[in-house]
Structure formats: structure tokens, C-alpha cells
């Protein structure tokens, strides 16, 4: 096998694995001809090694993981934000007529600012060396993922479900359930840590996870599923906008919706988390077991 190809394949393994086995594995690969089967085998095993390492980190309840979990969650969130920034840049650069529309710059800049705000929040929330932090972020991430799944399903119903999702009751239910989940994240965090501030942090973290999921889904759809020009032309907001390009308007609409989600996530998540954290602190605590005499 070509040494360059061997190096590229070994680079897919986790750094610790490469440090231990990289040199001898490279020697083995160079002794064998490259075949599609061998390359597939190496790639799948490398991915398995990475997944195993991730699983070890998530499942490991040791003291060390107290600081690994925030760092891991921070990386995932920052990566998601970076992907969304790229999606915006690619979408805008591949449809230049959007830039010619009146006021289009605002629609492009707003979600960029929203994503950067979420990124700053993720960095700030995970940089504190607080031993209670993993206990806040882990459940908040779980509640946030459930909330994000609800938002994504609702969006999918709006787009693929013959506009079922545009039904007011369904929209209201999806929103209220998601807000409730953010509140649960804040309540659980405050209850577990006896800190209203960490309740606020839990609620906001959960909200940011949810909205980033929904926004990623929405921005990805800009490339695959665009509303038909005829349908967009019937929108009242389009008629009032004065824009002549229906496709540019549907892209701007997605970007605007993304920004609204991000803003709501940060603001409402903080408010809901603070309220839930306050309730958790006011309510009486669980009964304390009687001391053995």
C-alpha cells in the first residue's frame, strides 16, 4: 500500500490508538496491496475505535470525566455551530441574486450573529471548572435533544406533511412541550445542585441544544427542499416585502426563521431556566432519611 494512503487511513483512528499502534500498523499496511475491501475494513474499524472512545467518555463516571464531559459537549456544540455557519455561507454564495435583494444583508447577518452568540454561550458555560457542571450539562443535553427532536418533527410536518404542522394547535403544542422540557432541565439542574443559577444554565443549555438541532435541520433543508415559487408567491409577507425573486425570499425566510429560533433559545431558555430554578429552590426538598441511632 502506498505510504501516503496508509498514513491517511491511520489518521482516521483516535490519537491515543495512533500513538500506540500507528507505526506498526503502518508497517503492516505497507506490506499489503491496497484493495477496496481492505480500505473499507480499515475505515470501519477506525470509526468503531472512535465511537468506542466516545462511548467510554460518555459512560465513564470517574472523577476525570467531570472535566471531559463539558469539553466534549463544547466540541460537539461548536462543531454544530461551525457546520451551520458553513451552510449559510455556501447557500448564500451559491445563490448570488439573494445579495441583490433589498435588505437581504440583514437576513444573512442575523443568523450568523445568533450562531456566534450560541457559540459564546457554549464556551462560557463549559469553561467554568465547577464540579457540579457535568451533572447540569448531561441531563440538560438529554432534555434539549428531546426538545430538538420535537421541533424537527414539527418542521418536517410543516414541510412534508401537507402543511399539517401549520395547524395552530399543533404548533402551540410543540412549542409548549419544548418550553416545558427546557423548564424540566432547569428544574432538575437546580434541584441537583441547590443552585438557581445552575438551573438557569441548565434551562438555557437545553434550549440551545434544541434550537441548534432545529436550525441545523432547517438550514440543511435550504439545499434539498425549497418551497415551490408558486406557493411562496401566495405568502402575504412575500407580497409585502417588495422582493421580486421568490427563491431568494424563501432562502431569506429560512435564515430569518433560524435567527428567530436561536434568539428564542437563548432568551426564553434563560427565562424558563431561571423560573424553573427558582421553583426548584422554593419547593421543599425530598424527605431526609432518618438517622440510624
Amino acid at each position, binding site marked *: 500500500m502506498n505510504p501516503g494512503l496508509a498514513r491517511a487511513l491511520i489518521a482516521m483512528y483516535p490519537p491515543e*490508538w495512533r500513538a*500506540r*499502534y500507528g*507505526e*506498526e*500498523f*503502518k*508497517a*503492516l*499496511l505497507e*506490506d*499489503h496491496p491496497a484493495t477496496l*475491501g*481492505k480500505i473499507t*475494513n*480499515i*475505515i*470501519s*474499524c*477506525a470509526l*468503531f*475505535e472512535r465511537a468506542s472512545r466516545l462511548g467510554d467518555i460518555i459512560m465513564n463516571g470517574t472523577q476525570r470525566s467531570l472535566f471531559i464531559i463539558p469539553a466534549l459537549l463544547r466540541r460537539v456544540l461548536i462543531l454544530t455551530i461551525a457546520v451551520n455557519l458553513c451552510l449559510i455561507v455556501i447557500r448564500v454564495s451559491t445563490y448570488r441574486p439573494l445579495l441583490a435583494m433589498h435588505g437581504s444583508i440583514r437576513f444573512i447577518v442575523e443568523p450568523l450573529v445568533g450562531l456566534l452568540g450560541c457559540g459564546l454561550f457554549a464556551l462560557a458555560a463549559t469553561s467554568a471548572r465547577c464540579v457540579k457542571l457535568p451533572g447540569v450539562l448531561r441531563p440538560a443535553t438529554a432534555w434539549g435533544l428531546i426538545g430538538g427532536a420535537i421541533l424537527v418533527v414539527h418542521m418536517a410536518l410543516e414541510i412534508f406533511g401537507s402543511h399539517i404542522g401549520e395547524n395552530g394547535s399543533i404548533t402551540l403544542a410543540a412549542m409548549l412541550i419544548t418550553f416545558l422540557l427546557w423548564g424540566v432541565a432547569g428544574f432538575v439542574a437546580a434541584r441537583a445542585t441547590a443552585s438557581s443559577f445552575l438551573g438557569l444554565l441548565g434551562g438555557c443549555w437545553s434550549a440551545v441544544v434544541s434550537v441548534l438541532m432545529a436550525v441545523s435541520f432547517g438550514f440543511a433543508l435550504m439545499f434539498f427542499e425549497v418551497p415551490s415559487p408558486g406557493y411562496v408567491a401566495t405568502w402575504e409577507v412575500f407580497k409585502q416585502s417588495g422582493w421580486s425573486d421568490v427563491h431568494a425570499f424563501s432562502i431569506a425566510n429560512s435564515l430569518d426563521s433560524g435567527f428567530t429560533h436561536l434568539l428564542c433559545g437563548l432568551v426564553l431558555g434563560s427565562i424558563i431556566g431561571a423560573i424553573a430554578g427558582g421553583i426548584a429552590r422554593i419547593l421543599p426538598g425530598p424527605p431526609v432519611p432518618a438517622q440510624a441511632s
Partner: protein
Amino acid sequence: LAAQAHSYYVKRSSRETKISESDLGRFSDPAVLVLASLADGPKHGHAMIADIAQMSGTRLGPGTLYGAIARLEEQRLIEPLPPEDRRYPYRLTPDGERVLRAKLNILRQFTVAGLQKLHTS
């Protein structure tokens, strides 16, 4: 006997760690093939692939082989020897030998029982 053979206690870093065959994980079968290949002496990766192919007709992919080697070494069932050029030979540890022996005994019982069922059917 099979139930007794199913799990072993392997000394690891001054503490007892229970290692069962299921702990060999996704690489269970390749791991046994690697252990069997090392049963007659130390070998490096290239030699193991050739030996396993000759012994069982299975040609392990390089990723699968090193996945198995990594887990077996982590469980202290094999250990590396000083490198020869860029190749690291591996050998069985006493725990590795015990695990291999028990695994092969289970396979033998399974084979005998399966053949008996075929004969009586």
C-alpha cells in the same frame, strides 16, 4: 463445565478484574483467531494474518486484526515483544493461554454436541 469456563478472573494492575468471553466484544471471533495463532509462539501482524488464513480459511482485514490485538492487549491476554525492524511481535500471556484453552474446550463441546444431534436426526 461450560458455565464454569465462561468467566475467568484475571489479575490486572493489582486488582481482580472479571473477564468473560463476551468482554472480547465485537472482535470476539477475530480475538480467538489471534489467540489461537499465537498459541505456537510469538508472531507479528503480517505473520498472524497468513497463519490465521492457513489455519481457518479466514483472511482478517488489517483493521480487524489490530482491533482484536488492541483489545487483547488491553485485557492482558497478549503482550508485545521488543520490535523487530518496525514490526512488533506479540505473544500469549498465561491468562491469554487459559482463556484460549477454555474457549477451545467450549467449541469442542459445541462441535461434539452438534455432530451427535446430526447423527441422531
